[in-house]
């Protein structure tokens, strides 16, 4: 395991620092001196260049815990803002290398060719995520109304005290959850199918909550964003009152990095 060493510019300073890596961008990217990511206002974002690629980085003191809400938001916001204008391969949160030289030697140089190829592939594209969530009252009503057995169970325990019907209540809730899960499979597939023609790739993500209706990531040309918005608007209109739909993006292509990686 390598240990952090102070970069040459800060010789004499006792504090250990590391280089926090946000992601990989083309070599010709320049950062705004006012750009911030993790590490607060004082930590600026710079690039470490090598060949045709560069790493977006922030020098970070290692004696602070990493992973506050501000750090998480800082990481993603910098990457998403970057992805809106240039291709970027996002790193998973929390990657810190020893120093700038290590960033070249251990990250950029060994993977230069596939990073460069992946960035070419991403030119003009970004990730978008469709997140749909059931309106709880509406989906519960839908589930109960479509299954007479559940309706009977509901009516049987409705007016009885909770203490004496706990196992029936759990059984009812579990059956409802299973029924929502079946709807989630169908609705997720519907989103993926509707949006696929406007994209260069689709990943159906796992549900992130029990009322998730769909969580679908797509890679798409940013020029086709209006088309994506139209598809999602049509879905939202069909599902009005039943499902809330959000469209996130442009985002860095978090869900497509592994696809871009050459087979190992």
């Amino acid at each position, binding site marked *: 395991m*390598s240990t*952090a060493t102070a970069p040459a510019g800060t010789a004499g300073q006792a504090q250990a620092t590391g280089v926090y890596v946000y992601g990989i961008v083309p070599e*010709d990217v*320049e950062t*705004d001196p006012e750009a*911030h990511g993790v590490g607060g206002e004082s930590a600026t974002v710079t690039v470490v260049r090598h060949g045709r690629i560069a790493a977006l980085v922030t020098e970070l003191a*290692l004696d602070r815990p*990493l*992973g506050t*809400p*501000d750090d*998480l*938001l800082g*990481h*993603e*916001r910098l*990457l*998403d*803002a*970057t992805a809106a*204008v*240039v291709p970027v*391969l996002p*790193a998973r*949160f*929390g*990657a*810190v*290398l*020893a120093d700038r030289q290590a960033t070249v030697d251990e990250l950029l140089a060994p993977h230069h060719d596939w990073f460069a190829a992946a960035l070419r592939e991403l030119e003009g594209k970004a990730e978008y995520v469709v*997140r749909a969530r059931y*309106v*709880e*009252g509406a989906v*519960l*009503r839908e589930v*109960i109304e479509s299954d007479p057995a559940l309706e009977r169970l*509901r009516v049987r*325990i*409705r007016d009885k005290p909770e203490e004496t019907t706990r196992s029936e*209540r*759990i059984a*009812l*809730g*579990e059956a*409802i959850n299973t029924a929502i899960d079946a709807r989630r499979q169908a609705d997720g597939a519907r989103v993926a199918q509707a949006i696929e023609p406007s994209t260069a790739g689709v990943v159906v993500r*796992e549900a992130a909550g*029990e009322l998730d209706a769909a969580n679908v990531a797509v890679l798409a040309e940013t020029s086709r964003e209006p088309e994506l*918005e139209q598809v999602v*608007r049509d879905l*939202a209109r*069909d599902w*009005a*009152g039943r499902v*809330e739909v959000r*469209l*996130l993006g442009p*985002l860095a292509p978090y*869900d497509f*990095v592994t696809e871009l990686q050459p087979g190992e």
Partner: protein
Amino acid sequence: MTSALQQSGAVDRPTSASLADVIDTILDKGLVIDAYVRVSLVGIELLTIDARIVVASVDTYLRFAEAVNRMDISQEKEGLPELMQDMTQGGAKHKVKGGVQGVLEAAGEKVRDVIDEPAEPERVPRRRRQAEEE
């Protein structure tokens, strides 16, 4: 919030990711930099594991059961929008905040205060050749 929007079937189009969305994304997706290259930092692995909350528990089942038991399904097939909305919101409030989810929600609340401050224009990296074109 979005309740007015969802009535009309409009799409919520947030301009930047919320903490919940971020957690769903950056903790287990993206380029993985090998552990033997990385400098190890306390807390990161834990954070990654904690983020994988998700899906149903007995608490969820009981909450669903409670919610449907309070519905008046046979008498009024259609409507009761206000009542339903009350129930949904009440349900969310009553929900026992267990474990990690509670922590994340609490963190989300804290962050929202920060986010609500007037947003500065986003400072982003740009390309030399784009800068030159302008």
